[in-house]
């Protein structure tokens, strides 16, 4: 029997992004949970309908501010599959470099926030300081600090010069030096262990049953990584390991992410060393009469999936399945039987990104009407 139900969110000090979680309680223990989304809807899938391919890329660039490498990289991959086009090696290397730098900054950011959730404000400040180096590199390579917009169909926006390479090597060295010491703290500290070990445990069988992906699946010992399973960009030419932990709790997920930062740094170093010479192709218009293709990349949070259907040179339907949407189904199950105090920790340990997840349409104003596409564009694009 449920004692009472409390809503957590959509605006709540412990949850940074808007989602409403309704939990039914028996004393201090959760017996049932349901999640309600839709508070940050941008309507990306509808917005993409009827757009030209280059216009579509512009919208996809703005889906999320943290995974802003993964979405355009998947989009251009799908379009290039349709064109039957293989980009030159140098372009592939630059794209891989961007993907890994995106992963480094996202994982550092997340690690800081995970510790912030359990009260370690100082660590958040340290992690944000280290993230700044990754952002400086990305800013230099792409010109932007958040929505990088460096991917173009058949090419990338900017080439990487010799000077850039030296700059990246210097900055990456600093991150490489700092992260192991934080890893040591995260591994040994008693308070961190008390709050994270055995919290939100996902067993390996459950991870398989729920089709989990990314660092969450790897934290439960499941070997899932698009970079290994279905290599894209230049991932088949670099040497890296899949980071696995076996205990499946919040602490294991944290360790997977921290170790992945080090592995990404290893990839970045190889890319810089082996970058092939040559020029990148100029940006050219793309026209496809008709076609439908699917593609996936490994975003920082797991597998990111795009399906695009083109009809009469315009996008007829786009389906985007960001990684966060995949593990919402296990999130509500994980809460059952836990105390209310564990909700923010479990949610944060999954690293949800609501900006990615909420893309479809609904605009609700006082009159309860759906805006036409033109209004939509005027207001939001």
């Amino acid at each position: 029997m449920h004692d009472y139900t409390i809503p957590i969110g959509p605006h709540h000090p412990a949850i940074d992004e808007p989602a409403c979680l309704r939990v039914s309680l028996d004393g201090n223990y959760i017996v049932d949970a349901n999640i309600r989304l839709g508070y940050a809807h941008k309507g990306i899938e509808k917005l993409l309908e009827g757009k030209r391919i280059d216009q579509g890329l512009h919208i996809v660039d703005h889906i999320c501010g943290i995974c802003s490498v993964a979405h355009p990289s998947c989009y251009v991959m799908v379009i290039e599959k349709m064109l039957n086009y293989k980009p030159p090696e140098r372009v592939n290397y630059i794209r891989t470099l961007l993907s890994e730098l995106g992963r480094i900054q996202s994982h550092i950011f997340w690690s800081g926030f995970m510790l912030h959730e359990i009260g370690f404000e100082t660590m958040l400040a340290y992690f944000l300081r280290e993230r700044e180096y990754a952002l400086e590199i990305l800013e230099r390579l792409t010109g932007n600090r958040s929505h990088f917009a460096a991917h173009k169909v058949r090419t990338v926006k900017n080439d990487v010069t010799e000077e850039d390479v030296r700059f990246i090597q210097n900055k990456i060295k600093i991150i490489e030096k700092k992260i192991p010491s934080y890893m040591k703290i995260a591994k040994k500290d008693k308070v961190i262990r008390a709050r994270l070990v055995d919290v939100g445990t996902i067993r390996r069988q459950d991870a398989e049953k729920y089709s989990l992906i990314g660092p969450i699946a790897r934290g439960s010992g499941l070997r899932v990584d698009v970079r290994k399973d279905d290599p894209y960009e230049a991932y088949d030419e670099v040497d890296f390991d899949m980071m696995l932990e076996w205990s499946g709790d919040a602490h294991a997920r944290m360790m997977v992410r921290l170790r992945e930062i080090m592995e990404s740094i290893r990839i970045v170093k190889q890319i810089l060393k082996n970058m092939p010479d040559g020029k990148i192709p100029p940006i050219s218009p793309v026209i496809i009469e008709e076609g439908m293709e699917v593609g996936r990349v490994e975003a920082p949070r797991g597998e990111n999936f795009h399906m695009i259907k083109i009809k009469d040179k315009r996008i007829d339907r786009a389906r985007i399945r960001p990684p966060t949407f995949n593990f919402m189904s296990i999130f509500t199950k994980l809460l059952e039987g836990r105390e209310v105090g564990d909700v923010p920790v479990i949610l944060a340990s999954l690293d949800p990104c609501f900006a990615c997840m909420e893309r479809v349409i609904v605009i609700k104003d006082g009159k309860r009407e759906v805006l036409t596409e033109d209004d939509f564009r005027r207001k939001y694009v």
Partner: protein
Amino acid sequence: MEKLKDSRLITISALDSRGCYHLLYHFDINGIKTFKVLIPEKKPVIQSIVDIFPSAEFYEREIHDFFDIEFKGNPRLHDKMFLPDDWEGRAPLKKDKTD
């Protein structure tokens, strides 16, 4: 679906192709493999796969919100996920005849 039990469900996508809906079940079986199911527009009902793939719950709820397709057997299908609770208009991703 039972035969695919051991493979990983990537996602379910829906398409409105004027006259019928296409439901695409994407699986990870040595790359992406897609299975297509056609559903008539007049009576859009299909069996849910939540009992085999629990992660399908949210994909089906999303499709129900935006296409009004019924998934028989999904326990929380009618709790709105993305749309407002009092939503009464047309399903937003359905296509007009003019689109």
